[in-house]
């Protein structure tokens, strides 16, 4: 209401303009479309350029003006970049193992925690919840050095464990708190009667979480799974510090190192590598667009 009182009374807008309201609206839409198309093309160009370069014969990527449609189209670039030069399938396998292990741990641990935050009353609940949210604001770099030393002490360097185990503690550096928050917000929207009835019938909270809450959580599960998989796929920093041997590299690390190793010479093969990193994300995005956008929107609205 405070806002409304700020809105001062104004005389109505002139209605006798020579253009009717509808025409003006149409023109407005047209201008908006033109602007959006312009910006949209700018956003798309790097993609097109990446894919186009990835299909060029060595040498033709330096032609001026640039060839948008490569001639000849070299599908073999992908074979060369991915199968001949790097153990692509190994990277793929490693990334999948890590992504699955991280996702399972994160979903189980954070949804359990979120259920406790959303439904159970216990002393210290609010303080712990604030602590969890505060980790969102903690720069990862402050904790990473001692964590690295700890992993080294445990002999976990060059294994997948440093990338997986934190997720099972609900604090994967890439978003444990984010998952807890998303699950909690969703659980709060589930009618209390459903789980309360189960509790009165004697079900333990553990059972209520597993048999009542989780089966109702389809949308939020999808969001959390997508972000876990995406984060494992995109993460470069953690694999970089924890993984040493090439046979343990993830896609991001392996292809990043490949590019660094071939700096500035084989742009077509580099772009093929970048395209391969990008395509699965594109597919995931188009399959689950709503979960993506919903997840980000929910956290943003936490601001309110």
């Amino acid at each position, binding site marked *: 209401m405070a*806002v409304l009182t700020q809105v001062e009374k104004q005389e109505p807008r002139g209605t006798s303009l020579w253009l009717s309201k509808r025409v003006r609206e149409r023109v407005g839409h047209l201008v908006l479309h033109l602007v959006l198309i312009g910006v949209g093309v700018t956003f798309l160009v790097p993609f097109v350029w990446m894919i186009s370069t990835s299909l060029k014969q060595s040498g033709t990527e330096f032609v001026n003006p640039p060839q948008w449609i490569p001639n000849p189209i070299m599908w073999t670039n992908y074979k060369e970049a991915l199968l001949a030069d790097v153990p692509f399938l190994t990277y793929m396998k490693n990334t999948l193992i890590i992504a699955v292990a991280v996702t399972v741990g994160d979903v189980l641990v954070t949804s359990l925690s979120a*259920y406790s935050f959303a439904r159970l009353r216990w002393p210290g*609940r609010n303080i712990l919840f604030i602590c969890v949210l505060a980790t969102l604001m903690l720069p990862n770099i402050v904790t990473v050095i*001692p964590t690295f030393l700890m992993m080294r002490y445990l002999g976990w360097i060059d294994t997948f464990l440093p990338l997986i185990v934190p997720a099972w503690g609900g604090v994967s550096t890439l978003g444990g708190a984010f998952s807890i928050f998303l699950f909690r917000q969703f659980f709060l929207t589930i009618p209390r009667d459903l789980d309360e009835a189960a509790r009165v019938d004697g079900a333990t909270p553990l059972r209520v979480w597993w048999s009542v809450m989780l089966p109702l959580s389809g949308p939020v599960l999808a969001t959390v799974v997508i972000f876990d998989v995406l984060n494992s796929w995109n993460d470069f920093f953690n694999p970089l510090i924890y993984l040493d041997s090439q046979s343990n590299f993830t896609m991001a690390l392996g292809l990043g190192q490949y590019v660094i190793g071939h700096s500035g010479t084989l742009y077509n093969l580099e772009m093929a590598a970048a395209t391969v*990193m990008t395509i699965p994300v594109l597919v995931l995005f188009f399959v689950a667009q709503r979960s993506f956008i919903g997840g980000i929107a929910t956290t943003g609205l936490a601001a*309110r």
Partner: protein
Amino acid sequence: MVRVARRRGGMLREDAIWGWLLQAPVIAGLAVFVAGPLLASLVLSFMDWPMLTPPSFVGLDNLNTLINDPFFVQAIGNTAFVTVISVPLYMVVGLLLALALDRKLRGISIYRVIFFLPSQLPAVANAIVWLWMFNPNYGLVNWVLGIFHLPMSSWIQDPGMAKPALIIMGMWTTGTTMIVYLAGLQGIPAELYEAAAIDGASAQRRFWNVTLPMLTPVIFFTLIMGIINTTQSGFTTTYIFTAVNGPTATETVNGGPGNALLLFILYIYDVAFVNFHMGYASLLAWILFLIVLSVTLINFKLAGRWVYYEGQTGR
């Protein structure tokens, strides 16, 4: 009635036990991977630990090193430059895109996808693509500038233009901010606009007096998260940008041309994981942490002056 009440009383006590029990993994995780390392890195700040030899307590020696470290000054300066320019810039761009998309228009969801998508792609792939886009001789950016007879640049290889290149590239990934704003815009109750329209407020006035005040909590959120993220998110990009060029003979750290791309996070990585000075790196990390923390706290303090919270809608 009595029986139900008793049961509820029993449930409350049971709740307290279960409540903590279900948090056990998270509490353990917070202790082992957050609180413990946070304290440990504070202790490490007063130690020298080159990894090959056991750690030794050196008191304030690291602080002394810090004061005489030219790279530290450079790294802080670079990070401050990028943060001060990019955070407000990305907020404005994100808000403008969101405002443009917050209406019923044919094909609006296609635009939404196009603007949002780059922000979700792997930072490695984005860095590789933009390295090619910014190539001084064959890159698309210079080609486009050439068409319009605008001055070209060596971008990432030019000490003066490397950071602007980084900031331009970052504009491509403002999609996350845009979506947050879009959700914020769609959360503003339509009654407010209707009431303002009845009062005869023009579109412009409605924006300044309804949209913007109602959006301030979201703007505040993007500001806080933007600052925290900028201090960290540049790592992958600058790592790839600088590793590809490789350090020159005169440079002992890998910070790009004239160390223009030596962001604080990249420098900490260099000190910790390339040169293995774990103690000094911990001090640097804590300094970064303290800076980010103070900026965040100052922002929270100032928030009361401009952030408008509607009633108390929290649960």
